[in-house]
């Protein structure tokens, strides 16, 4: 699975990619559970295997996030209009659409980052594995531990590389030195940056390049052991080489995490995602597997957008 994904990433012709990709039909999904343990290592393994349902070779992937009739507002402005969507577990779901269409707003509802905006409110159903994410008594601290986020611009803390990764875990419980060392190494390895930084763990994270900083931010998000990773245009501030590194990383991480990525780069959406959802003016126009959206979109607006006729 991983090998196929890597070869897709290298391909330059976006139209041919979905065809080259194995259909996420029965054959591909059936192969996934068997392949997973080989990739998953470290402290995430037990957590993952212990979960009921993951071992079952279901015909369709389990739904991680359920959205029904979801609307949201900033003051009197309605940013999202009655969304219905299922985001499958341990796949990459890409949100595409022109600027201001509400995709980032929606992403920020999933980990309730919109709580920091006083005028933001939402209605409808938004559930993570059956837990109501809009409940007023929801523990947002625990939610954000389960749903990590990577931002548009790399935002490492002005601390050492080690302390950046250790910051999250330390918030939630106390670790012994060796446990923490191990967790930091695992997280940096999972984010494919360990080899580059292992000799300077205690120097400032601000000395890293933009692409390295972004992978460090991914390591930081992974370190708290989330189930879902939200990525808000994670490559928009990076050069092509760093973008490639992040995309390859996303492929690897999709074996273990449910990933939701907002992107303005159509090729990127095609390269990395299993599912694509097209947003326009606060509405979810079309959602489905990436190759369906890419090859035979049902909606004219979707087709116009992905072929670059507008947006």
């Amino acid at each position, binding site marked *: 699975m991983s090998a196929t994904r890597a070869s897709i990433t290298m391909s330059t012709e976006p139209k041919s990619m979905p065809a080259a990709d194995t259909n996420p039909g029965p054959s591909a999904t059936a192969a996934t559970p068997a392949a997973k343990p080989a990739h998953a290592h470290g402290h995430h393994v037990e957590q993952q295997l212990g979960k009921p349902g993951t071992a079952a070779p279901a015909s369709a992937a389990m739904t991680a996030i359920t959205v029904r009739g979801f609307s949201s507002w900033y003051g009197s402005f309605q940013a999202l209009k009655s969304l219905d969507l299922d985001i499958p577990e341990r796949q990459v779901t890409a949100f595409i659409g022109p600027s201001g269409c509400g995709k980032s707003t929606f992403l920020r509802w999933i*980990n309730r*980052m919109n709580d*920091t905006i*006083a005028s933001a409110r939402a209605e409808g159903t938004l559930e993570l594995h059956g837990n109501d994410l809009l409940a007023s008594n929801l523990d947002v*601290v*625990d*939610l*954000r*531990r389960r749903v*990590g*986020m990577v*931002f548009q*611009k790399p*935002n*490492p*803390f*002005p*601390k050492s590389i080690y302390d950046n990764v250790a*910051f*999250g875990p330390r*918030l*939630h419980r106390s670790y012994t030195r060796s446990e923490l060392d191990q967790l930091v190494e695992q997280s940096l390895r999972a984010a494919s940056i360990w080899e580059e930084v292992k000799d300077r763990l205690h120097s*400032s994270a*601000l000395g890293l390049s933009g692409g390295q900083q972004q992978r460090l*931010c991914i390591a*930081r*998000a992974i370190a*708290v052991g989330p189930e879902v990773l939200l990525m808000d245009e994670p490559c928009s501030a990076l050069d092509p080489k760093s973008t490639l590194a992040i995309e390859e990383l996303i492929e690897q991480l999709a074996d273990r995490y449910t990933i939701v990525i907002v992107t303005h780069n159509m090729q990127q959406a095609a390269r990395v995602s299993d599912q694509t959802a097209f947003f326009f003016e606060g509405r979810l126009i079309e959602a489905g597997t990436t190759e369906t959206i890419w090859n035979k979109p049902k909606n004219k607006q979707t087709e116009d957008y992905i072929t670059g006729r507008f947006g």
Partner: protein
Amino acid sequence: MSAERSIARRMLANRAFLALCLAATTAAMLILAVLLVSIFAQGWDGLSWSFMKSLPSRKAEKAGIWVALIGSLWVCAICALVALPLGVATALYLEEFARKSRLTRLIQTNIMNLAGVPSIVYGILGLTAFARMFGLFGTNRDEALTFGDPESLFFVRLPFGSSVLSGGLTLMLVILPIVIIATQEALRAVPSSLRSGALALGATPWQTAWGITLPAAVPGIMTGSILAMSRAIGESAPLLVLGGALFVSGAPDNLMSDFAILPLQIYNWASRPQESFHAIAASAIIVQLVALLLFNGIAVFIRQKLQKPLQ
């Protein structure tokens, strides 16, 4: 032809404006130079180790600044120990926690205004609140409450009277608004992406403020606070109102001791008719200037040292 004339006229205006600015700068520098030269000419010879170490005396040649210097140190230390935690905590609350409401705007405006209130007004407040305690605990000659032996370090009485503690607290009132404003500005300069990054890892607002925002703002807070302290060390008016203790025989033993401070010692000596006292006043001014320079130097050093990793 007319274009050339216009250029010539503009060049003339340019030169005239340059000359005006230069004249203004020169005037300011000249006044400062005259002040410094006259003080150094008068006071340089009087500076000696025995001048630093001697107690006050009725004879100018025997008098020294030891009591005033130590008094200034006590007052400034008390002032800093109270003003910094109070000021930083207030700024943290206003910037990071308080919802922007009419009440917080009112508080904000008041703090801005307080920074501009003449310091003698704070002297009157300090006299009422700290030295006399609104008359709630009897008079200064007949204290309602005393704890400990008047000779020991831990002696405390209510009301505080014109003691070194009252002096420090009064100066605290003078610089508190400055510390608050400086800290608020330092906090505002911390990129909001760092706060989002911490919150997205599941940090509580308190963990975000204490673990990320405050450390990132420390250089700015330190610079602002040290500049506030250099104002405190030069203040005389509020302490004149407070006690008027212009002749004190010894350095403070405890928080309830009478005290002298350098600016008031200078005032005392300079207002005497004898020439010889004017000379030692000039020597004391040199000491005061060196202390001020030291404070500002430390502020610059800290800014240089700490702000680098943030950029």
